[in-house]
């Protein structure tokens, strides 16, 4: 269970506050206007940004002082989710072990997880030899190998076309959420949210609102969300 306690982040004029709990197994979309702080919220949870006040904890364990890799979290960024100079196999191996060692057992695990995301036999390729959608699949495969209970998606599929993006979101939910992981994903598209999210966090006017069930929220949006959605 992810808990944000009186979390405050300030960067110059920008400020963001959050104080809520996200239940285990939730698939939660983070929505709100550009520049509202959606990515900042994820960066603070992932540990790339030290909050000015408050605490981040997981299952009662405080994370605030831990480095990103020490947290029970894996994250996909908008871009640069794979090292372009390494093969897919090596990229995935780094998800198992930062030393990047490969042995027969690990090769087998990598082959299995690549098969799950539809990239069978692509081990030796460099990311540049893959399409955008395939690169996203490879990044998802690494998240699977890292096997962390909380997965943050900071719009990793934003550069894909709408059809492909939906496909990747479905795949992400199927392979990640299906195993009881908690997903927190930035989203710009209410359709995306309606399609896969169980909950929505609205980020606006310096606050990240507590997660609320997605279907009723989208059916009858509060004024801030209504303004953002343009209804």
């Amino acid at each position, binding site marked *: 269970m992810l808990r944000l306690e009186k979390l405050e982040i300030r960067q110059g004029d920008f400020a963001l506050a959050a104080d809520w709990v996200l239940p285990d197994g939730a698939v939660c979309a983070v929505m709100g206007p550009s520049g509202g702080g959606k990515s900042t919220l994820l960066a603070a949870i992932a540990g790339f940004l030290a909050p000015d006040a408050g605490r981040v904890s997981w299952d009662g364990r405080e994370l605030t002082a831990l480095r990103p890799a020490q947290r029970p979290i894996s994250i996909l960024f908008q871009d640069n989710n794979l090292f372009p100079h390494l093969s897919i196999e090596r990229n995935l191996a780094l998800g198992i072990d930062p030393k*990047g060692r490969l042995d027969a057992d690990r090769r087998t695990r990598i082959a299995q997880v690549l098969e799950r995301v539809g990239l069978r036999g692509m081990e030796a390729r460099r990311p540049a030899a893959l399409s955008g959608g395939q690169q996203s699949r490879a990044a998802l495969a690494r998240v699977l190998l890292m096997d962390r209970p909380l997965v943050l998606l900071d719009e990793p599929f934003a550069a894909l076309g709408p059809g492909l993006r939906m496909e990747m979101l479905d795949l992400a939910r199927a392979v990640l959420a299906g195993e009881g992981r908690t997903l927190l994903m930035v989203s710009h598209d209410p359709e995306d949210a309606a399609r896969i999210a169980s909950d929505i966090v609205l980020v606006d006017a310096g606050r990240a609102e507590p997660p609320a069930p997605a279907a009723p929220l989208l059916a009858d949006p509060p004024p801030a969300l209504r303004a953002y959605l343009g209804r």
Partner: protein
Amino acid sequence: MRWPGGIAAGLVLALTLGTLGAVAWRAGFALRLGPADWAAIRFTIWQAALSALVSVVLAIPVARALARQRFPGRAALVTLLGAPFILPVIVAVIGLIGVFGRGGILNDALGLAGLGPVSVYGWHGVVLAHVFFNLPLAVRLILQGWLSIPAERFRLAASLGAPVGRLLEGPMLRAVAPGAFAVIFLICLTSFAVALTLGGGPRATTVELAIYQAVRFDFDLGRAAMLAVVQFALCAAAALGLRAAGAPEALGAGLDRVVEHHAPGGRMLDALSVTLAALFLMAPLAMILARGLPGLADLPGGLWPAAARSVAVALGATALTLAMALALALRGGALARLSMLLPLAASGLVMGTGLFVLLHPLVSPREVALLVTMLVNAVMALPFAARVIAPAVAQAEAGHGRLADSLGLHGLARLRWLILPRIRRPLGFAAGLTAALSMGDLGVIALFAGDGQATLPLLMVRLMSAYRMEQAAGVALVLLAISLALFWIFDRGGRVDAAA
């Protein structure tokens, strides 16, 4: 990882400020400058200022021509402008003597015209050599300025019918030229090899040359130490001036573009500027070949051992420089930035004198001549290597640092999987640069070396002072070939199979 950067910074500080402290202590902190010392100081400043002024003034029409004209061979010429940086000074001197010296092609031509011979030796020879080395640098810096003016501005000026020169080019030159002047002034302040071979005497002795003479001939360590302090102060003042003028980006890429210029004009003037500049640069290079090829038939004894020593020193210096530049780039912060710049204000001979003072009671400096040369070369090349490597490391971190953080890549794992693969090309280029600089270095080795310890540049100087110019020219060609080969191999090594 921060501690390797700390060690590198410590080494740089010890070799620059530490050696300076050693010489200051040896000098007894007393500055008693005699008339000859003052003459050396005056000449050092004067020749550096004149060399920088001439280089920058002559560079402006050449840079303008390259900025606004397309012509066959333009790319080759731009590449050629980068060559003097890795051309060993002493090799270039052979070429300049071949053009401007007593038996050079210029005097042959003047003789045919019935005019008296000109001499390349003396203050004008020193300035000539400095302009040869720094005109290309000035052209590159100013060309960069021209290419940094956005094309939209030229279009706007053209649509307004406004004078491009006063509106765009004048302000650009006022912004860029002082920085170019300051860089070249600083480079010429530390001139040793040129002053040693073309200068000398009471009217053309630089402070660096005076230090060398004090140690090597008079064994007057007190005077050498005092001059070393003066030299450091001069360089530090010039380095501060450079900061104030705004240090320009010397190694920037992308000079192969042509400004979309809406009032080209002046084609004749541009053609003349480019032709003269190309001639001025290429004639000495051609003379290196012309004089060197016959010399190859009569290479002196001791050539290959000297070549082996040079290569060994260059490879050692390259490894050390890359390690220091990488460690400092990974550490970051004010101390690292200082360490990357400090060697610019230091001089090889000051470091050498300091090490001489420190080592003299312990070991004979001759026993460690090559090791000391390698250390000094490594530190002297550091600013250039760091200038190439540090931005590449920063770029690798900016692009994939968060990914590496999220995967827990630290220390050696981060170096192996993120940094090194991402900086291969700049690393190879920096290695080539360092190896070539070290191969051509003639400084501290001249201070220390005994009979059986000459490197190729020192062997050349010895041959030249024995008036065996043909043999010296042959050695020059060998030195040039090895320098270029090392540069090519390293630079190539960084490119082969470098992934996107």
